[in-house]
């Protein structure tokens, strides 16, 4: 039973690069930091490709954000093996918060007949984990998140997805009928490396470009003004550390540490 799978990908700044907030509106200046595909989304792409390999079908890489840069995130997903891209770009989306992005994604994905919509459980920049469950809600679909395994079974019209949802002390086995939204955890798999052939073939894969109007997005619900959360300010965090360092060459460092912990009221 071939599956029509969408996988949502996000471009994030490289962790190793310095982050610069635009002083005018406190959004991240995404042009000045080197961008990569959110590593957790790579796990979602890998999971989508494995499901396609097991069941047949097609995988669409979906992203929201400015042209150029986000096109690279989609291109990377295509290079890994996704079949086509779907890209929503519109200046009105600048500064959208997590729920506004989830709404925009829902408008973009609704009515396209996807059986399964995969996302990374979180992005390595904002890390809120709000988008996958909010996307499920906006689409009025079951949402299964924090998955460390994803399996699809059943017959046409009765397809089910089963995940292992990570818990602190183990996992829950969860099940829902398709269509559904699934958030995939970091560590669910080892994303494949991109091959030269993958990069070459990606260039000829179709990417559908839409603007907000084309996706039926209400401009009052997105962007800095349409988001329900507002940033009031930002400041570099000053973490004054005591920077006491002792050498254990005398074998007494553990005593000094115990003294320190006791003085701090920690033991």
């Amino acid at each position: 039973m071939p599956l029509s799978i969408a996988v949502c990908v996000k471009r994030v700044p490289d962790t190793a690069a310095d982050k610069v907030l635009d002083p005018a509106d406190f959004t991240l200046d995404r042009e000045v930091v080197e961008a990569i595909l959110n590593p957790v989304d790579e796990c979602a792409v890998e999971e989508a490709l494995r499901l396609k390999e097991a069941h047949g079908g097609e995988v669409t890489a979906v992203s929201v954000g400015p042209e150029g840069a986000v096109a690279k995130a989609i291109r990377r997903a295509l290079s890994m093996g996704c079949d086509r891209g779907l890209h929503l770009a519109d200046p009105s989306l600048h500064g959208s918060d997590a729920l506004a992005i989830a709404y925009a994604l829902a408008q973009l994905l609704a009515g396209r007949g996807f059986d399964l919509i995969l996302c990374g459980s979180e992005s390595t920049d904002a890390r809120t984990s709000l988008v996958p469950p909010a996307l499920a809600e906006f689409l009025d679909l079951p949402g299964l998140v924090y998955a460390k395994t994803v399996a699809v079974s059943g017959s046409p019209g009765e397809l089910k997805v089963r995940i292992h949802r990570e818990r602190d002390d183990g996992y829950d086995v969860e099940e829902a009928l398709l269509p559904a939204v699934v958030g995939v955890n970091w560590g669910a798999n080892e994303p494949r490396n991109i091959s030269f052939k993958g990069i070459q073939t990606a260039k000829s894969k179709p990417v559908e470009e839409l603007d907000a109007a084309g996706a039926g997005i209400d401009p009052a619900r997105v962007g800095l003004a349409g988001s329900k959360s507002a940033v009031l300010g930002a400041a570099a965090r000053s973490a004054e550390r005591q920077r006491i360092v002792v050498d254990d060459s005398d074998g007494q460092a553990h005593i000094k540490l115990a003294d320190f912990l006791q003085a701090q009221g920690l033991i």
Partner: protein
Amino acid sequence: MSDVWVLVDHDRGAVSKVTQQLLTLARSLAAGTGGSAIAVFVGPGWTGAEALVARFGPAAVLVASSDELAGYQTGPTVEILARLIAERQPWGVLFASTAGGKEVAARVGARLGLGVLADASAVSLDAGQGNRPLVEHAAFGGAQIVRKTLRSAPYLLCVKPNAVTAVEAPGGQPPVEPVDAQLSGAARRVSIVETVSTAAGGRPAVDQAAIIVSGGRGLKEPANFSLVESLADELGAGVGASRAAVDAGWYPHSAQVGQTGKTVSPQLYVAVGISGAIQHRAGMQTAKTIVAINKDADAPIFALADFGIVGDLFTVLPALTAEIHRRKAT
């Protein structure tokens, strides 16, 4: 419009520490809004939770408890809570900023057209702006503090574990109001087939623990995590692991601290045999006190440690565990 609600975070009636912190925060916020702190309990196991919730002083508890609710993931909680919010319009709801808490908040927000703030490390009231919330959270691995608010009420706020210190409030049993636990078909769409426990148990979960001891590649082999666990047990701590240790298969991903794992803000974070790569620092550098034990004096972890030991963890760790045991006994 002035009550401050707390969604009780629990596992079949076992109430989490963060709930105690949220109830404490709700009491102080409610003093400013002129309302009351109200606990909302959804799920099975209320009788097991009742006494603990009462100790943290809610003025009342709304309870939707039935065994049937155990069979589904967050769907029932979302449906019941969204219904209550729409009917009663509290000032806002505090959620644990954990995996489950953020999932419920996101769905309730999307359902009711409300905004959600996640990962709050501090919450106060903006009295000059109609008591809208002022929320701080650490961004970009703790390098920035961002201040936010919400334009939509009721306010949905997810608060990080250990953001506030839990304080009990004597006052006896609050009144309990049973609320409708009827579920639609949509709330039952994601069923829990089975719950599998793999951990030894007994230790606090890493994203809620007030103290965390984490191990990395310096432990050399997985069996040596027992040294980390012994110290953790002596401190009543949770056990964390670096990405290198998790990638090597030494410890489960649920314990991973760092950019692709948990972001934690404990009172005390002890990094053992962890060099302090940026991807690890992004998950722990908002800890109140940081201790590092590493044999490499040039390891970047020492740059953010309050107390560092340059030494062999295989001698320091057992000695430290024994020393803390001795001091606790005297």
